[in-house]
């Protein structure tokens, strides 16, 4: 019996396994994996001290601090406002809600170069917002603040779209139970709702952060390319490439790739946690 069953399980009713998996692996290898391997191959042409010197040169170090700092702050701001936006979209009714809901995805759909020149002009001295901020002594264009603004724009949908489905699926009975046991609305939010949203918020944060680290198009126009001050890491890579210094560009790219891979891994773990949390709640 047992052997029969294992035999039967091995017979596949559906065709095309070898064809589709083969094509998937071939395509991924050709388009993604082999070219990515080239990065590590090119870095291997550098000696270890050369590599270390390149990735720790002052402009690179300044760019890491800026890229990480701005990405972190932008993702953090998006956690707060993204949660409010998701909350409002799920729980309240107001005029134009459907349009607002659709437009939340604008940063996904709008090409980064368009976002870049728009934000740069909007916040320039003569732009609608730049003009208003100038008397207050706040300059956004050509400053680190501008990079933060661009990264906030890019990251918003990540938080909203990860929190929204979880918020929709929350069991209202838990909130009813908490409030019938005497919890205030704030206590219900802080002690009951927020803990259930934490995995989704963390996932959204990590997604927005990861996207912000690599972002190029929407940032460079508003950042203004001031050495040591407003140069993000992708821009440093771009500059080395423009000077045809491929080994240097590649060495810094390796640093970014390693960080991205670590983040991708943690996002996968977080998503698994979110799903588990969610199914546990439903069960």
């Amino acid at each position, binding site marked *: 019996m047992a052997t029969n069953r294992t035999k039967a399980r091995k017979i596949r009713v559906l065709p095309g396994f070898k064809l589709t998996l083969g094509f998937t692996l071939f395509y991924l290898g050709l388009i*993604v994996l082999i070219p990515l391997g*080239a990065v590590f191959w090119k870095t291997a042409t550098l000696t270890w001290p050369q590599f270390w010197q390149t990735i720790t040169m002052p402009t690179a170090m300044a760019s890491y601090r800026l890229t990480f700092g701005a990405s972190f702050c932008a993702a953090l701001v998006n956690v707060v406002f993204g949660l409010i936006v998701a*909350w409002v979209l799920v729980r309240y009714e107001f005029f134009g809600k459907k349009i607002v809901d659709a437009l939340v995805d604008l*940063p996904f759909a709008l090409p980064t170069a368009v976002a870049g020149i728009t934000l740069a002009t909007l916040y320039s001295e003569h732009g609608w917002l730049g003009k208003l901020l100038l008397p207050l002594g706040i300059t956004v264009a050509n400053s680190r603040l501008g990079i933060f603004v661009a990264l906030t*724009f890019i990251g918003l949908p990540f938080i909203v779209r990860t929190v929204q489905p979880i918020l929709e699926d929350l069991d209202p009975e838990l909130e009813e139970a908490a409030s019938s046991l005497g919890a205030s609305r704030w206590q219900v939010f802080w002690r009951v709702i927020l803990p259930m949203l934490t995995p989704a918020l963390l996932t959204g944060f990590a997604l927005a952060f990861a996207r912000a*680290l*690599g*972002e190029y198009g929407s940032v460079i126009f508003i950042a203004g390319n001031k050495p040591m001050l407003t140069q993000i890491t992708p821009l440093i*890579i771009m500059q080395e490439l423009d000077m045809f210094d491929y080994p240097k560009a*590649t060495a810094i790219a390796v640093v970014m790739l390693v960080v991205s891979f670590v983040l991708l891994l943690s996002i996968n773990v977080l998503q698994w946690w979110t799903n588990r949390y969610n199914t546990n709640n439903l069960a």
Partner: protein
Amino acid sequence: MTPVATTFRSPPQVVHHHTTSEPPAVRRALIAVALVFLSLFLFLPLVFVFVQAFAKGIGFYFHTLNDPNAWSAIKLTLLAAVIAVPLNCVFGVCAAWAIAKFDFRGKNVLLTLIDLPFSVSPVIAGLIYVLVFGAQGWLGLYKNADNPHFPWLANWLNEQDIKIIFAVPGIVLATIFVTVPFVARELIPLMQAQGRSEEEAARVLGASGWQTFWRVTVPNIKWGLIYGVILCNARAMGEFGAVAVVSGRIRGQTNTMPLHIEALYDDYNFTGAFAVASLLAFLALVTLGLKTWVEHKNQELDEPNPQMSQIPQIK
């Protein structure tokens, strides 16, 4: 569920207001905060694109778009999308079929690998192709026949006089790279949720593999496929960083629309830059519109379609 609970929940609005919602003032404040934030960060920039595009009048707008360099950029953008989207579509369907319909080891690794292009900076996406095909790259050494890494391939490329970097093929490759995951990511969860029973039933009833795919699977995944294609196309037409690295920015030849926008902007022709940008912003709005429509369509299909789950599962 006890009858008490049922009656308790039957007028949901009343319950909602008293126990599980915020006071009206808090509600209004939260809506206001959300709308002000979204207006400042999303709606204002969107409106600004169109206002700036027409700042010098409709004549200047069409003058900018009628420029041969603008036309060449539009054509190149369309070409890259026309090649990248169908290829990634075929890839997405194949990957989803393999992952959703079969069990094999290393599935999670494969899923992570498919997501990889999303976590790679666009600049690095361009860089990797420069490293493979560029003058100092793996295959780029073919001009210098002393030390080619892959002599047969390098010689062939040399004989055909095919340029990849700073030419159209590089732009197409970079576009393909950044859009690899879109269709696959939409289809994999969808096909996993739909399971295998319908296809297995079709096969058992005598349908061929292709018949099963076209008559059973495709109708089931139609909306997910359309959704993926819409998102894939938006990214393919709007990609900037990756394309900027491999294009070489030769006006009228290797500039896509986003690169043409950058060129105009760097020339201080801001109104011109926004005129071209308005086309892409319009595309973004169409994308969002279609996306919302497909989601709506999907919800409509989900609800009056419960008979699917009533069919006894064939095991």
